[in-house]
């Protein structure tokens, strides 16, 4: 117990409390409908796609950067993976072609971002804003603004299915979260990312190839956007240029509310996961309670502030015992 309090649970105590409170409110107001297994799975499935993106975003923000183009990259990857040509090849071979295409497209976009930011020394905000416009525009051109349906049933069945009652999408999210945690906290890659975000000059003096590391985090996020596109394709059965709308705000919000500093140098995967869950649970509770959209928006604003204040209170008390 003590270990937990000083470990991840303790560091994210405020978030845990916020989430628990939300669940209590949910159970209280919506009863069985909220506490139902299916409902929980629904929440998790919804969290999975944006969750995968947010894990990648944690790295970028921890490295002192930002990426506004995630949603656009998801859209482009989904569109590219569902073009007639790609689907034809997939039909002749295997749906893995769709997956590979999406991952490659995502990674390539991340690479462009990374190269321009790291080697072109341009502000991440600007570069990814440009990518946001360009990737979504390109997606529209490729899809001609049509919604492209995934023909391959096996693909849908695989990713849309469940293993032992747990949806595959949720499993993917959990795996990505665990991998993200290990990479951030237990590998040189993660430490270097934090070093670059914390003090790029010091990192350079220590012999870290700052530019290369910076590039890598955007590539990683691009790859995860490609994965998110696959998940979204499975979930919606289509690829379209409107996928991933405003994901940038959602992902950044989840990461920041989780406790990762926007100025870089500190990052927490556990916090990000909580951030994602809080936002998705919030939406779910709202839906169950039949709140109208405007009231939801106001409530959401107030709840965000409350959650962060709570997190601050609890972590301040912890810091000065």
């Amino acid at each position, binding site marked *: 117990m003590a270990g937990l309090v000083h470990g991840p649970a303790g560091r994210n105590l405020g978030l845990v409390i916020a989430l628990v409170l939300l669940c209590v409110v949910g159970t209280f107001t919506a009863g069985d409908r909220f506490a139902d297994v299916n409902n929980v799975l629904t929440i998790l499935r919804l969290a999975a796609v944006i969750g995968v993106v947010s894990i990648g975003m944690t790295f970028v923000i921890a490295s002192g950067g930002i990426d506004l183009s995630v949603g656009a990259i998801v859209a482009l990857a989904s569109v590219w993976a569902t073009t007639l040509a790609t689907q034809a090849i997939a039909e002749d071979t295997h749906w893995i072609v769709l997956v590979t295409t999406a991952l490659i497209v995502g990674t390539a976009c991340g690479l462009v971002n990374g190269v321009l930011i790291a080697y072109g020394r341009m502000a991440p905000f600007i570069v990814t804003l440009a990518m946001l416009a360009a990737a979504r525009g390109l997606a529209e051109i490729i899809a001609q603004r049509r919604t492209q349906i995934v023909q391959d049933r096996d693909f849908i069945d695989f990713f849309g299915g469940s293993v032992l009652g747990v949806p595959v999408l949720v499993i993917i999210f959990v795996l990505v979260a665990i991998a993200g945690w290990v990479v951030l906290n*237990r590998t*040189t*890659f993660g430490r*270097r990312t934090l070093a670059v975000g*914390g*003090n790029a000059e010091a990192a350079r003096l*220590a012999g*870290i190839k700052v530019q290369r590391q910076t590039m890598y985090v955007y590539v990683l996020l691009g790859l995860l956007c490609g994965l998110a596109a696959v998940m979204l394709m499975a979930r919606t059965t289509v690829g379209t240029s409107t996928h991933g709308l405003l994901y940038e705000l959602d992902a950044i919000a989840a990461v920041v509310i989780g406790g990762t500093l926007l100025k870089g140098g500190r990052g927490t995967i556990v916090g990000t996961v909580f951030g994602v869950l809080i936002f998705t649970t919030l939406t779910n509770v709202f839906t169950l309670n039949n709140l109208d959209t405007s009231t939801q928006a106001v409530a959401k604003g107030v709840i965000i502030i409350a959650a962060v204040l709570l997190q601050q209170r609890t972590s301040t008390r912890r810091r000065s015992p």
Partner: protein
Amino acid sequence: MTAIVKRFPGVVALGGVDLDVRPGEVHCLLGQNGAGKSTLIKVLAGVHQQNEGTITWEGREVTLGDPQAAIDLGIAAMYQELDLVEGLTVAENIFLGNEKARYGFSQRAAAAAETEKLLARLGHQEISPHREVGSLSAAGQQIVSMARALSRDARLIIMDEPSAVLDSGEVEQLFRVVRDLTDQGVAIVYISHRLEEIREIGDRVTVLKDGRTVATGLAVEDTPTSEIIRLMTGREIEYVFPDRTGEALGDVVLRVEDLRRDDEFRGVSFEVRAGEVVGLAGLVGAGRSEILETIYGARRSDGGTVSVDGKTLRRGSVNAAVDAGVGLCPEERKSQGLVLEDTVTRNITMASLGRFARSGVLDQGAERRAALEQTEALDVRPTGVDRAINTLSGGNQQKVVLARWLLRQCRVLLLDEPTRGVDIGARSEIYALVRQLADDGVAVVVVSSEIEEVLGLSDRVLVIGEGAVLGQGTADEFDEHRVLDIIMRGDAA
């Protein structure tokens, strides 16, 4: 290194410098602030690339494109401006870029064990490898920096003013390690403005002046200190403290009563009168900076009072202190002192903006003139107040921080390590200015790790140890031994 030339936009930092270092020696690099010492060693460490000249390593000419290239050759450096990542732990910082890892996975236990060994070697077992570096004091960070240099198993270690934040005991410890290393054939390049240290540890010296070598490879034993000073400055300088004018002191201005912060210090009481300089002497980590910051309200006290002119200040409020006329010249120039990207002028006038403004609109001409006046008095080089502060050398940056507080008309001035990294020429100027302020009726509190400086500058001295006042009296009653003696005995005398 031969005929190294390094130009920055608008400045020739190095205009043809030669330096040769032999295995197993301690080669001291001397020069006034802005002479080019840090720039030279940054070229050697691959941080900057020279515009002209060659670097030869073990007989081979090498190009050092980035820090990693130098590290690969076996050159490790401790930089003047601390180069640590505050959010990472001690162990992570020490092995940054050189991680203990297998297949990319950190071996944290091994790193921690190795860190403990390194810190023990530096006499600092008490620093935990898992502590976040940002929570360490400047001295603690310097130690970590040193441990990192050691961890690289380098053939050449460069130390840029490592002693600036260390007290004499810490410096002794450092020298033991240095001797250890040289015995194993490791070469050291050592930069310091404390000439007595050079005498103690150095084998040979190279002197820089205005980006040129004026002397290289002089054997320390054969060169008298006065000669070194002459080479550095081109004139004779007496390392002197200004006379205490002995004028009648004014009323009590600052009164500190039973000030306390849990786990840091307790029971601190003293008074400072107008025109008086009070010095706080003590070892690194004694809590002197904390005391000053608490008086200033930057830290919130857990008990006791601070009053100025009889009025008690609100706890933990910088605003209250500032409004009462208190000023603090902070210890950490980079994080607490300077807006690094801003110009010299703006950094100097930052704390006295109101004086240059009429209904909020600034008179930039007056601002600039005031800044120029200050920089001239303190001999900030290069001259010109419109350059960004981060293009100045470390010592000159320190002068700018000080200039800010000299410009501001305070009732009470708290100076934390005011001469950190400042060359001896400028030091005398600073001492004179502090004395001048006191004579004008300001109450001054000075903290310095150089006991000699505290004793020379102050009217009264408080000896601080382990967060408590161990002794106090007029400066005449103390000498360096007595101070150290009080600290060693540890109990209030």
